[in-house]
């Protein structure tokens, strides 16, 4: 009779390969060269991070009302930001009407919240999402612009600050993605007319800088329009940004479409599904999932590019901060202003990036082939 095999019990690993010490040992102190590099890195960090912290936190002026309160501090003057905070958020939107912006934001957060709850079934989410996509812009526009239901009118020239940045970015993203998808499908179409049209569109918009597009829309377009006819400046910027980013989005999506094996089209077609159903149910869900990093990349670029509208005289976050630094009462605080603007942009872009990563993980169904 065969002897039965008794496996050895697992021994705990040595202390210097696990835990904090193990990590330190492996990554920072594993050889004399690495020890030297670690020390050097610590030194470099100490001469850069410490002064920065001193400036931004320890020596900074945090409370007060006027510029005089900053004089006693050698660090940053965050009072400058506090004093202009409302302006940075809303631009020149009339103070008494700012509740309308807040209401619209609150409405969006509340109505879109179910989309991020995992327990809610997808079929419901799709319906809610599509509904929001159609209804919310109308409600938001009426709230922002006014002139109806007893709301006083607020000209788009008075929109500004982070609010305006979010309007441009929000409209740009929600319009550029579907448009980009259609352009990508069109570019792969078997119909020569549609294909040529899409290729021309994409290559035109990819070939010109956004700044040129914005300039042309504000300076040249009025020359071609008949006397008296005038487009809203913001609307022109929105169209420019959307079409520009849609061209980029189209190429990102096309990359995803090309990665879908031909067998997927064939299997769907063999079941009797038509072109649009194949695209909507089989190909696009897979293709878009593959290019989430590219889509978010485009979104982030779009978000940051909104700051270019300053050259056509719209007061988005960037321009309003710039404007505040030229305020004679608050001269000399441009560093604080731009650091604040950068922090806000970073916060939004980083959130998008993190959300895309979690989305990728969640949508992964274990079928890498």
């Amino acid at each position, binding site marked *: 009779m065969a002897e039965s095999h008794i496996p050895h019990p697992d021994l705990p690993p040595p202390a210097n390969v696990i835990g904090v010490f193990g990590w330190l040992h492996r990554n920072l102190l594993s050889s004399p060269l690495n020890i030297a590099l670690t020390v050097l890195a610590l030194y470099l960090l100490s001469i850069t991070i410490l002064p920065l912290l001193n400036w931004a936190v320890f020596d900074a002026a945090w409370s007060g009302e006027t510029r005089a309160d900053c004089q006693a501090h050698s660090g940053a003057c965050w009072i400058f930001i506090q004093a202009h905070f409302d302006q940075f958020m809303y631009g020149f939107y009339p103070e008494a009407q700012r509740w309308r912006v807040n209401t619209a934001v609150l409405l969006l957060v509340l109505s879109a919240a179910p989309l991020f709850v995992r327990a809610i079934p997808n079929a419901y989410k799709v319906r809610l999402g599509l509904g929001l996509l159609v209804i919310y812009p109308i409600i938001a526009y009426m709230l922002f612009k006014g002139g109806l239901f007893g709301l006083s009118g607020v000209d788009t020239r008075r929109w500004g600050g982070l609010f305006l940045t979010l309007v441009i970015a929000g409209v740009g993203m929600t319009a550029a993605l579907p448009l980009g998808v259609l352009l990508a499908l069109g570019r792969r179409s078997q119909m020569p007319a549609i294909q040529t049209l899409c290729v021309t569109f994409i290559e035109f918009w990819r070939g010109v800088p956004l700044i040129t597009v914005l300039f042309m829309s504000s300076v040249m377009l009025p020359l071609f329009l008949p006397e008296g006819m005038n487009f809203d400046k913001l609307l022109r910027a929105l169209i420019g940004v959307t079409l520009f980013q849609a061209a980029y989005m189209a190429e990102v999506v096309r990359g995803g479409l090309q990665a879908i094996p031909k067998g997927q089209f064939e*299997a769907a077609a063999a079941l*009797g599904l038509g072109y649009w159903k194949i695209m909507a149910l089989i190909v696009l869900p*897979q293709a878009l999932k593959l290019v989430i990093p590219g889509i978010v990349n485009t979104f982030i670029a779009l978000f940051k590019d909104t700051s270019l509208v300053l050259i056509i005289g719209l007061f988005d976050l960037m321009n309003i901060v710039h404007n505040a630094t030229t305020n004679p009462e608050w001269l000399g605080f441009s560093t604080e202003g731009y650091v604040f603007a950068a922090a806000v942009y970073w916060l939004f872009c980083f959130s998008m990036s993190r959300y895309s990563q979690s989305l990728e993980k969640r949508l992964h169904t274990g*079928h890498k082939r």
Partner: protein
Amino acid sequence: MNASSTVAAPVSVSLSDQVMIHMENVHKWYGAFHVLKNINLTVRKGERIVICGPSGSGKSTTIRCINRLEEYQRGRIVVDGLALTNDVKLIEQIRREVGMVFQHFNLFPHLTVLENCVLAPIWVRKMPRKQAEAFAMQYLERVKIPEQALKYPGQLSGGQQQRVAIARSLCMNPKIMLFDEPTSALDPEMIKEVLDTMVTLAEEGMTMLCVTHEMGFAKTVAHRVIFMDGGEIIEENTPEEFFTNPRSDRTQLFLSQILHN
């Protein structure tokens, strides 16, 4: 080398006269390359046909013409009384009645097994979801994997995936099933489970066209075996005659190569 021993006993034959597929003088070119040369084939209701031949002989292309995954340049194909044209609606109508199983399964990886099965009934046949799911579970039971219904295709073995692909096609309640080398991408031990499923289907009287190298399957299940080479149908025969007494030299050579390896 093949799974002949695993396949069930020959199935009793009861054929009607109703013609399900009629191919007449079909020619196809890829550019200047003549891939299908004068294909003529008539398949009656309930008939089971195996198409074999060396690779590149046009077997797959032939059956892919039937549901118009491939265009052809000359000739005529009538499927279930409908003559194929370029009309997209007509093609979709024909595809609804013609199921197809692919060599590489082609399941939709972003959908669960059950969602794979109910997709077409819901979106093409406009069946209510509940009903489609009940229907799909029946077919998943028939291919013996109901317990995998909520998994994703990537979590299944090749044999299981191919059985799901068969169930997915059956959920459309097709009148004809086309099999394009359904076992060629499978490990030997998984070939049996897929062939068993196909034999069951055959026993139920499904009209089937199979491109396959499983000669055991051809011997026991097929009513007719078609041998293709160089884009032509070289021989069309009963399985008994085909294997014991082939008419053409080319067939003999092919058989000697695949049976004595």
